[in-house]
C-alpha cells in the first residue's frame, strides 16, 4: 500500500481538478491548515487562495473533515492510506487533494482506488455541522482529545503510526514485542479494528479503559449512546460527534453485516499473521502443529488457561493443528486479549475459518481458488479485496516463474533474480506485494535450494556402507518440506520407518577431523572461485558426508550446521584475500564488488539453509515426541497383553 501511495505521490497520475474542485479543495485545505496553526486564524476564502502553499494540514482537522464526509471509518482509513498521508506522515497538499478526490469517489459509490479519481467526480460532501469557529475550537479540543487518546492506543497497540503523534508512539515500548519477531514492520492498522470504536469515543484517559471495556462487552456498536457517557468533551463537539457517528454507524451497518469491529481482521493484520504463519510453516495451505503453535503463542506471555481457551476457540475442527485461517483467528484473539479485550464466549463470526478464508483467500499461492472464493466474498469487501488480490495474484503469478528458474543457487542467477526482484517492486502498486513477493521469492528459492543441498547430502549420506534407516526418514522429511503434498503421506511412512531398530553403527572418524578435512578441501575451492561460494556449500556438505559416519540424525545436521557456519566466516575471510592476490589490480575493484555480492548471496543462502534446518529440527523434535507417545501406548498395550500375574 505504501509503495502504491509512494508511486502515486512521486510520479503518479496528475490530478485533474476542475475549477470548482480546485476552489473547494484549496478552501478545505486552507481551513484545515489554518486550524492546524492553533491560533485564531480561521480560513477565509481569500486567505485560502492566498496561501495554497500551506505546508501541511494537521491530521486533527483533517480527520474531522473526513469523518464529516460520513464515510465508514474503514473507507476513511483506506483513503488515508491511499493518498499517501500514511507514508509521508502528514497531509501535504497532494495528499489532501487526493484524499478529497477519493472521498468524492467513495461517496459516489466508486471503489476506493487510485483509478477512481481519474474520472469526473462530484465534489465531496461534508456534513459541515460546525462553523469555522467551531472547527477551530473543536479542533483544539479534539487535538487535545486525540493526543490524550493516543497514549491509550499506544499502550494498546503502539504500532500504529498515527499521523499526528508519531513521536509519542516511538517512545513507548511495543506491547507486541514478545510476539513480533519482525517488529520493524508491525501492521499499521492493527489499531484500527480494535479501537475502531475508540476513535469515535474520544474519551479522556481515565475513562478510556472503563468505557471501551463496557462498550466492548456486547461486541455490538452501541457506541453512540456510550459516547455520550464520558462527558469530558465540549458538549457541541460531542453532539456533532454523536450525530456524525450515528450516521456513520448506519452506514457501517449497511455496509458490513458484522458489527463486531474488534474481531475483524484488517488487511495489514492479515498479512502480518500470514507472515508469522509462514515463519512457522512455509506452506500456507498446510497447518501448524500444536506444539509449534504452543511455543509460538506462549511467547505472548498470556496465561496458559487463556491460551488454552483461545486455542479452543480458534481450532474449529479440533485437530490439534492450526490452518492459516485458524492461525489468524488465534493470533487475532491473542492480540485482542493482550490489549485488554475480554475473550468472547464463542468464536466471533468474523474470525470463523470459513469467513476468513472467503474474505481473505490465499491468492498468493492459489489463484484458481481465488476465483471460486470471489463469489462468496461479501459484496462490500469485494471491490476492495478483489482489486487488491487481483493485483497480487497477477503479479505473483508472474513472479513465480522467475524464482523457480534460480533453483540451482548459482550466484549469477541469484544476482539476476535480485534484479528481477527489483523490477516487480517498481511495478507493484501495493506495498504488500513487494513484501510478499520478496518472501514469496525467498521461499521457493530457499526451499528449492535446500532441496538440492539437503537431498544431495542425504543421497551422499546413503552411499557409505551400512546406512541406518533414519537417514531415509530424514530424506523424506527434508523433501517433504518442499513437496508439501508429500507432507502428509510421508509422516506415517517415516513413523513406520522408525520402528525397526537401527543396525549397528560402524566406527566413524572424529567429526572435527572430517570438518577440518572438508574445510581444507573447501579452502582451495574458495581461493579459486569466490563467486562459487554458494555452490561450495552444497559441495562442502557432500564432502562432510563422504566420510562414512552413519550417524544419527542430529549428528548429521550438526556437522552440516557447523559446516555452514564454518564456511561463512571462512568465506568472508578467505574471499577477499585470494581475490586481492590472485586477480590483477585493474580488476580488483570490480572483483571485490562482485565478491561482496557473492558473499552476501552466499550468506543469505546459508541463512536460509539454517532456517530450513532449524525448521527441520523442530519437526524432528515433534516427531520424536510423537514416537515417544506411541511407545508409551505400545507399552501400555504390552502390559495389558501380558497375563495378569498378581491378583
Amino acid at each position, binding site marked *: 500500500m505504501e509503495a502504491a501511495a509512494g508511486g502515486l505521490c512521486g510520479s503518479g497520475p496528475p490530478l485533474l481538478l476542475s475549477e470548482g474542485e480546485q476552489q473547494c479543495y484549496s478552501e478545505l485545505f486552507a481551513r484545515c491548515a489554518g486550524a492546524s496553526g492553533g491560533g485564531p486564524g480561521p480560513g477565509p476564502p481569500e486567505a485560502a487562495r492566498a496561501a495554497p502553499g500551506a505546508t501541511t494540514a494537521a491530521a486533527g482537522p483533517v480527520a474531522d473533515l473526513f469523518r464529516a464526509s460520513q464515510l465508514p471509518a474503514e473507507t476513511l482509513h483506506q483513503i488515508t492510506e491511499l493518498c499517501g498521508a500514511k507514508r509521508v506522515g502528514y497531509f501535504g497538499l497532494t495528499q489532501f487533494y487526493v484524499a478529497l478526490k477519493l472521498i468524492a469517489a467513495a461517496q459516489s459509490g466508486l471503489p476506493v482506488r487510485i483509478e477512481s479519481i481519474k474520472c469526473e467526480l462530484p465534489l465531496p460532501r461534508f456534513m459541515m455541522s460546525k462553523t469555522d469557529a467551531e472547527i477551530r475550537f473543536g479542533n483544539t479540543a479534539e487535538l487535545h482529545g486525540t493526543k490524550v487518546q493516543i497514549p491509550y492506543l499506544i499502550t494498546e497497540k503502539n504500532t500504529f503510526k498515527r499521523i499526528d503523534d508519531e513521536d509519542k508512539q516511538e517512545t513507548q515500548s511495543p506491547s507486541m514485542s514478545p510476539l513480533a519477531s519482525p517488529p520493524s514492520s508491525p501492521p499499521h492498522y492493527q489499531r484500527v479494528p480494535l479501537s475502531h470504536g475508540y476513535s469515535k469515543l474520544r474519551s479522556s484517559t481515565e475513562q478510556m479503559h472503563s468505557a471501551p471495556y463496557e462498550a466492548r462487552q456486547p461486541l455490538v456498536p452501541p457506541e453512540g449512546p456510550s459516547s455520550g457517557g464520558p462527558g469530558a468533551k465540549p458538549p457541541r463537539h460531542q453532539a456533532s460527534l454523536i450525530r456524525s457517528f450515528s450516521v456513520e454507524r448506519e452506514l457501517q451497518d449497511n455496509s458490513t453485516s458484522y458489527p463486531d469491529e474488534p474481531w475483524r481482521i484488517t488487511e495489514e493484520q492479515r498479512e502480518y499473521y500470514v507472515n508469522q504463519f509462514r515463519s512457522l510453516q512455509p506452506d500456507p495451505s498446510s497447518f501448524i*502443529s*500444536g*506444539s509449534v*503453535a*504452543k511455543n509460538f*503463542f506462549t511467547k505472548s506471555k498470556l496465561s*496458559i*488457561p487463556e*491460551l*488454552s*481457551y483461545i*486455542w*479452543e476457540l480458534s*481450532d474449529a475442527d*479440533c*485437530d*490439534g493443528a492450526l490452518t492459516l485461517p485458524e492461525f489468524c483467528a488465534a493470533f487475532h484473539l491473542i492480540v485482542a486479549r493482550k490489549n485488554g479485550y475480554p475473550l468472547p464466549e464463542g468464536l466471533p463470526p468474523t474470525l470463523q475459518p470459513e469467513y476468513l478464508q472467503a474474505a481473505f483467500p490465499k491468492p498468493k499461492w492459489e489463484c484458481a481458488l481465488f476465483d471460486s472464493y470471489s463469489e462468496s466474498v461479501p459484496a462490500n469487501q469485494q471491490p476492495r479485496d478483489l482489486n487488491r488480490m487481483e493485483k497480487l495474484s497477477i503479479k505473483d503469478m508472474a513472479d513465480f516463474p522467475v524464482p523457480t528458474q534460480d533453483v540451482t543457487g548459482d550466484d549469477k542467477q541469484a544476482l539476476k533474480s535480485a534484479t528481477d526482484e527489483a523490477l516487480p517492486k517498481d511495478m507493484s502498486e501495493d506495498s504488500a506485494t513487494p513484501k510478499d513477493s520478496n518472501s514469496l521469492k525467498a521461499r521457493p528459492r530457499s526451499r528449492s535450494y535446500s532441496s538440492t543441498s539437503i537431498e544431495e547430502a542425504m543421497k551422499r549420506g546413503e552411499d557409505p556402507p551400512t546406512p541406518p534407516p533414519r537417514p531415509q526418514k530424514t530424506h523424506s522429511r527434508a523433501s517433504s518440506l518442499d513437496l508439501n503434498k508429500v507432507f502428509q503421506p510421508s509422516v506415517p511412512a517415516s513413523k513406520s520407518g522408525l520402528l525397526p531398530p537401527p543396525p549397528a553403527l560402524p566406527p566413524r572418524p572424529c567429526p572435527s577431523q572430517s570438518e577440518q578435512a572438508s574445510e581444507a578441501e573447501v579452502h582451495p575451492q574458495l581461493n579459486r572461485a569466490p563467486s562459487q561460494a554458494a555452490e561450495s556449500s552444497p559441495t562442502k556438505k557432500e564432502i562432510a558426508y563422504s566420510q562414512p559416519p552413519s550417524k544419527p540424525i542430529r549428528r548429521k545436521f550438526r556437522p552440516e550446521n557447523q559446516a555452514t557456519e564454518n564456511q561463512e566466516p571462512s568465506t568472508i575471510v578467505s574471499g577477499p584475500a585470494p581475490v586481492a592476490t590472485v586477480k590483477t589490480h585493474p580488476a580488483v575493484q570490480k572483483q571485490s564488488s562482485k565478491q561482496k555480492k557473492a558473499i552476501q548471496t552466499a550468506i543469505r543462502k546459508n541463512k536460509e539453509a539454517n532456517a530450513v534446518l532449524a525448521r527441520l529440527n523442530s519437526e524432528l523434535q515433534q516427531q520424536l515426541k510423537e514416537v515417544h507417545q506411541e511407545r508409551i*501406548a505400545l507399552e*501400555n498395550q504390552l502390559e*495389558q*497383553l501380558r497375563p*495378569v500375574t498378581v491378583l
Partner: protein
Amino acid sequence: MAVCVAVIAKENYPLYIRSVPTENELKFHYMVHTSLDVVDEKISAMGKALVDQRELYLGLLYPTEDYKVYGYVTNSKVKFVMVVDSSNTALRDNEIRSVSMFRKLHNSYTDVMCNPFYNPGDRIQSRAFDGMVTSMMIQVC
C-alpha cells in the same frame, strides 16, 4: 441425564468432576471413588479386547438405592464415570444413551487433549468441555 460426571485419570485421580445438585457433592465423590474399584475389576477381566467400542463402555457398574453408576474407559486408561438418578426412567435404553453420552464425553475429551496448551494430567478447564457436560446434566431436569 447425568447427576454427576467424572473423568478419572489413569492414575486414578480425578481430572474433572462435576455434579448437578450442589449439595451432597461429597457423596458423589465417594460414589465415584468406590466405582473405580469396579472399573478396575472390569478392565482386568476384559483382557485383550479393548479396542472394540463395546468394551470401552463398561455398562452399569453398580446400582445403589438412588443412583446408578455407569463406567467407560478409554484406550489410555482414562475413565469416565457417570452417576445417574435411578428415578430417571428415560435412560432405560441405557446402552444407547450411555453409549451416546459417553461417546460425547470421549469426543470432548479428545478435543481437550488436542489442545497443545493442555498437559495430560492437568485438571480439565476447557469451557467447551464444561458446556458439553452441562448440556448432558441439564437434560435431567
